């Protein structure tokens, strides 16, 4: 390892010029990792007309932004973006590079990791810096990449002991966004971009972008359903409960896979992580991947007909019973008490 200061990089995602929340969450985490390494936090931003957004990263502690700004880079496109970022990683050898676990991050990160032959761990639920002894060799200040694995039956800690650059993706909501009271005095470094014909091997010919209608992270109350809801029709009762008590509806991965609800409303390791005031888990068994996305909720109610369901291990109020009987009673009780 050279004496040069260790750098933590965060790739800043933008869509239509708007930054992704997950990028600021990662800057907030990256700042802590950089502190542990006594290193520096840097942001990498690719797009067009990005000066303002670049400066926004200073509020999260980035001391430098590597900015590739060019009209042809306006929208994310795999080849030019990965070419630029791979070049930067080759040149600067940061110690850590973090990406959002989004459609963009999951398209880009493996490409860059392959080019630079770096270790990459997907969908981490925690990141820490620690000295590690691995196969009787001591390594100082490795990145511990922690994630559930194997259907949630185990929690694995992954390390990249011999990889100069350690990379990880993290889903939205896993890390908490922590802006500084006072932005740091950062600087913006322009990264030159020279268009290359290979960048046009894949061209965007149509884009359909909807503003997200759901913002689970901001919802104070979430009514969430699992596979135990039984079927699509039963699942609809959750919308009734959510409407009455003023919440958003979410689901587990099993519910998404079964077609009960769409992926943008999935809570868990491969969905969104939420911390609402109240989380009502209906027909959810409580696999670790799901719990990774909701166990920090202020209060959790679990309704399940299986008294041994693991969800009862993380809830504050447990109701053993048939969701299709309990939920109507809950709706009635709420209406009676509060209306």
């Amino acid at each position: 390892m050279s004496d040069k200061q260790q750098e933590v990089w965060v790739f800043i995602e933008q869509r239509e010029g708007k930054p992704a929340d997950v990028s600021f969450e990662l800057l907030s985490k990256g700042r802590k990792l950089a502190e542990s390494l006594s290193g520096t936090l840097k942001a990498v931003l690719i797009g067009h007309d990005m000066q303002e957004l670049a400066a926004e990263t200073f509020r999260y502690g980035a001391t430098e932004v590597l900015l590739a700004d060019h009209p042809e880079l306006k929208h994310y496109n795999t080849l030019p973006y990965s070419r630029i970022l791979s070049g930067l990683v080759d040149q600067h050898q940061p110690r850590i590079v973090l990406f959002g676990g989004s459609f963009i991050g999951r398209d880009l990160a493996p490409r860059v990791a392959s080019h630079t032959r770096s270790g990459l761990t997907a969908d981490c639920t925690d990141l820490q810096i620690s000295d590690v002894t691995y196969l009787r060799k001591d390594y100082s200040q490795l990145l511990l990449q922690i994630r559930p694995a194997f259907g949630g039956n185990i929690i694995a800690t992954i390390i990249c002991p011999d990889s100069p650059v350690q990379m990880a993706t993290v889903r939205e909501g896993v890390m908490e966004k922590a802006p500084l009271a006072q932005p740091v005095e950062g600087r913006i470094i322009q990264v030159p971009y020279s268009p290359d014909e290979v960048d046009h091997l894949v061209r965007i010919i149509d884009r359909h972008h909807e503003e997200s209608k759901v913002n689970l992270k901001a919802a104070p109350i979430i009514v969430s359903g699992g596979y135990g809801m039984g079927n699509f029709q039963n699942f609809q009762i959750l919308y009734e409960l959510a409407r009455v008590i003023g919440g958003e509806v979410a689901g587990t991965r099993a519910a998404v896979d079964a077609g009960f609800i769409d992926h943008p409303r999935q809570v868990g390791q491969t969905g969104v992580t939420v911390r609402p005031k109240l989380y009502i888990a209906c027909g959810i068994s409580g696999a670790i991947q799901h719990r990774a996305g909701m166990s920090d909720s202020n209060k959790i109610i679990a309704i399940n007909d299986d008294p041994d369901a693991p969800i009862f291990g993380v809830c504050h109020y447990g109701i053993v019973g048939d969701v299709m009987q309990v939920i109507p009673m809950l709706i009635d009780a709420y209406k009676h008490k509060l209306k």
Partner: protein
Amino acid sequence: MSYHSIVMVKQVPDTANISGQVMKPDGTVNRSKLPTIFNPEDKVALELALQFRDRFGGTVRVLTMGPLKASDLLRDCLYMGADEAILVSDRKFAGADTLATSYVLSEALRKLAPYDIIFAGRQAIDGDTAQVGPQTAEKLGLPQITYAEAIIEARGRQITVKRKVDQGFEVLEGTLPLLITVIKDAATPRPFRAKRVMAYKNAHTLLELEKMAEANSLLYVDQLKDEYVSKGLFIPTLTADDLDIDVERCGLSGSPTKVHKIESVILGGGAHETIPATKDGMYALIDRLMEDHIFG
């Protein structure tokens, strides 16, 4: 014009159906007790490739890296309609992370060139990383289209693909050859064709023939191979020796990520208040939530 496709498939543990026997007391996984399945999105990728062949003509080959047991998966692919199946297998490839896996796969694909499209499922359910597709594309210097939902059109060397993005979709036009990763909604895998099951149930990989020869002193593997090749029932196997590879970049030694620690998940019954599933129970619950300042 017709197109030549190769589909990368994987046999995976059925992580959705893990029983108690599978987890050892120390929290590690007993892989031998795990039922294995055709990785769901790879099966969809194969279906999409077969539909593409139905529309435009050409061939579909499938490629997997795995142990002897992965031969079952390749037969499944033949039953669905793949023209040829290839196993990539060697002890030296064991313990590979996504980087080492994509290295071996990319070298196997070089041997199988030329091709127009490489298909793969977006991700495998045992790791959910979605990394092997893009990493393989990068190693081959190919463009990639991930999260493909549909192939809209192919004309000459241009292909038009609809892909899902976080909030909506994109339509991309790509120049072949390229790699496409496919999401679950892209197609519904066809059932096995009875005729093809009859035709290919005795198709065997080289590894299986070696096993047969070991078990019976009257059989010689070279003869067996010739016999199976002549019957069209031989599934070629590529080993480290068949590929132009740096062994140091394969398997465990070629994997920058290492598992440092594994903890089993303790599903403890935490302290919580039990609310009876009755009308009175619900009233009491609402009261508690009002005390908690969540309602009211």
